[in-house]
């Protein structure tokens, strides 16, 4: 119940003075109900230009075939699948925040889940475009589906992880979309009831006629919980199956049983880094400092250390197992990764993913906004290189030394990748402009229990242990949105 106060020693999840239910709505809807500011237009213009480049590059690929890319006979997968795995991985943090943290009752997810889920959906869209365009003949993209056909009714091969992937990614995308949209309904209804004219009509259609009655909320909560329950194994299965695309093949460097957990940890790692990259800017530009607090940033940084360390252990285990297996092809694949012509890619990956996140052990660094943002970009770069290393360095020297080559991207490769980032940001900026970026209904649940204001009132009323109050006030030191002087008086 909303009247139960949580322990005083927990950090507040909402800061600021006079936080009321009305203020939550008004603060969150500022970007939706007002004209976009200059920062938004500048960002949107750049992102839209990027998306335009993506359209050009992908159209060029469709017109000329994948010969437009730098692929050759030996390296048949390169930037395309690197980009695909990178984007799918990024998507995973959204589901982790919305589903896994819901099951674990981590209330700090309430103010970041909406934008993280949006990020998931847009990242999976970017990933899916790679899948379609790397097929070469996108108009035959329906071939992996088990449809009755004219080829002697030969069905798709259900023993193949590539077919599993089709089912996994499409299920993941559609279930994430449903989860996200169902959660949006009450908030769209809020916009609807405050709007007039055409805006009201549009949001009315989008709100599905939500009215917030007891039975609606009760079913809504049941639906959210079960969707979280099914999305949790789903998100793990998706990246497991993505890793099967590699692990079930017989290419040295790919054929390892460690891949599923290693890919899943890497996905969460890169996804949280991307959430951090986006939210640190969004909180500043959109004045969400009171809702996305230093506690949120620090918690995400902690998850980045944990998953980054898991990834680090996986890299070392891979090296050890390659040596321990005694299989010379496997040994060579890893020796070539570490010290071959792509050594720089391997060591970029190692530095960005394993070494630099360890800086978050220092409290100063993990509670610094600038450092968190820079490191989140570093992790994003590192995770791109991880996929590049796994894919290209395993392929470029195959069993026949006469076919050993290097991979050089063409301008189309680069334009598709950079363009996909533009597409992602275009979608994300549109989302920030037209839909509430923070789940208002869920944040309202925290107003009475976990806000700085309510905790301050408790301390003022002398209802808490002095020691605990002191500990609590000290924990507020790291917040950039809390004024410590207010507490000196109490």
């Amino acid at each position: 119940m909303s009247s139960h106060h949580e322990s005083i020693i927990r950090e507040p999840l909402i800061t600021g003075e006079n936080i009321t239910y009305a203020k939550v709505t008004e603060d969150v809807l500022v970007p939706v109900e007002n004209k976009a500011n200059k920062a938004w237009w500048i960002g949107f213009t750049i992102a839209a230009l990027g998306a335009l480049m993506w359209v050009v590059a992908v159209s060029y690929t469709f017109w000329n075939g994948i010969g437009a890319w730098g692929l050759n006979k030996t390296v048949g997968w390169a930037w395309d699948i690197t980009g695909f795995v990178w984007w799918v991985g990024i998507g995973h943090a959204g589901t982790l925040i919305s589903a896994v943290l819901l099951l674990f009752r981590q209330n700090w997810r309430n103010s970041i889940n909406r934008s993280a889920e949006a990020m998931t959906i847009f990242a999976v869209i970017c990933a899916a475009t790679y899948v379609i365009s790397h097929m070469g003949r996108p108009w035959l993209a329906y071939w992996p589906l088990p449809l009755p056909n004219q080829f002697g009714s030969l069905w798709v091969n259900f023993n193949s992880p590539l077919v599993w992937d089709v089912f996994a990614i499409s299920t993941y995308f559609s279930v994430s979309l449903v989860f996200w949209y169902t959660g949006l309904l009450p908030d769209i209804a809020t916009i609807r009831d405050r709007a007039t004219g055409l805006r009201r009509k549009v949001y009315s259609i989008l709100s599905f006629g939500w009215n917030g009655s007891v039975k609606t909320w009760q079913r809504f909560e049941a639906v959210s919980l079960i969707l979280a329950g099914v999305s949790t194994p789903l998100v793990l299965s998706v990246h497991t199956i993505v890793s099967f695309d590699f692990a079930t093949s017989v290419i040295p460097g790919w054929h390892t049983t460690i891949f599923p957990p290693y890919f899943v940890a890497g996905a969460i790692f890169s996804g949280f880094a991307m959430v951090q990259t986006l939210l640190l800017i969004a909180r500043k530009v959109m004045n969400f400092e009171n809702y996305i607090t230093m506690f949120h940033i620090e918690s995400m940084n902690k998850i980045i250390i944990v998953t980054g360390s898991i990834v680090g252990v996986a890299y070392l285990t891979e090296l050890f197992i390659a040596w321990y297996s005694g299989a010379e092809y496997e040994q060579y694949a890893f020796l070539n990764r570490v010290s071959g012509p792509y050594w720089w890619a391997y060591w970029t990956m190692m530095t960005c993913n394993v070494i630099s996140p360890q800086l978050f052990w220092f409290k100063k660094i993990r509670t610094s906004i600038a450092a968190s943002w820079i490191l989140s970009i570093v992790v994003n770069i590192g995770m791109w290189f991880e996929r590049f290393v796994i894919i290209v360095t395993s392929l470029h020297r195959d069993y026949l030394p006469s076919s050993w080559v290097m991979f050089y991207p063409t301008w189309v490769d680069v334009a598709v990748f950079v363009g996909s980032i533009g597409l992602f940001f275009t979608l994300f900026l549109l989302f920030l402009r037209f839909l509430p970026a923070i789940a208002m209904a869920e944040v309202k649940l925290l107003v009475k229990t976990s806000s700085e204001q309510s905790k301050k009132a408790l301390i003022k009323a002398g209802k808490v242990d002095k020691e605990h109050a002191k500990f609590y006030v000290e924990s507020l030191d790291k917040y950039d949105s809390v004024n410590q002087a207010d507490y000196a008086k109490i």
Partner: protein
Amino acid sequence: MSKVKYILGHFADPDEMMHGIDKLHQNNIPVYDVFTPMPIHGIEDKLGVKRSRLPIAAFCFGATGTLTAFAMIYYMMVHDWPMNIGGKPAFAIPDFVPIMFELTVLFGAFGMVGTFFYKNHLFPGRAPRVMDLRATHDRFIIAIDAQEIKDAKKVEGLLKEAGAVEVLHNERKYVSYE
């Protein structure tokens, strides 16, 4: 007989609203419905709303998905066109598992959400049946059917006593139609 159809008690605080429901119950005044901007935990028990059966629906839809996937793969891989892949068995159950799992989730999620939308009449373009526009913003609203009560003054008094900031006597049920 007055033209008032519904009495709405506006509360600014969810706990006061819960208190208001208690007050009304003590005086045998039936609550028509409650509209809130956020889920209120524990309100179902208070209003005697039965536990949602959506989880059961989700299970049934999920099981349908599992069976559909199994039947489809079995038909295609074993019955209709068994392929000889290195002499391995066509009926390779472990390879069926990933897609059986995915379709379980897919059917379960869509079936459950579809049922939720169907039962609550939620669909794109439905005219919102909203009794008060602030119920999605910052007010917790108890609605009382004016036809079912005798003394409207008493109801207003009870609501105010419980902490209602405003009590409305509406002559139309839904304001959103205006």
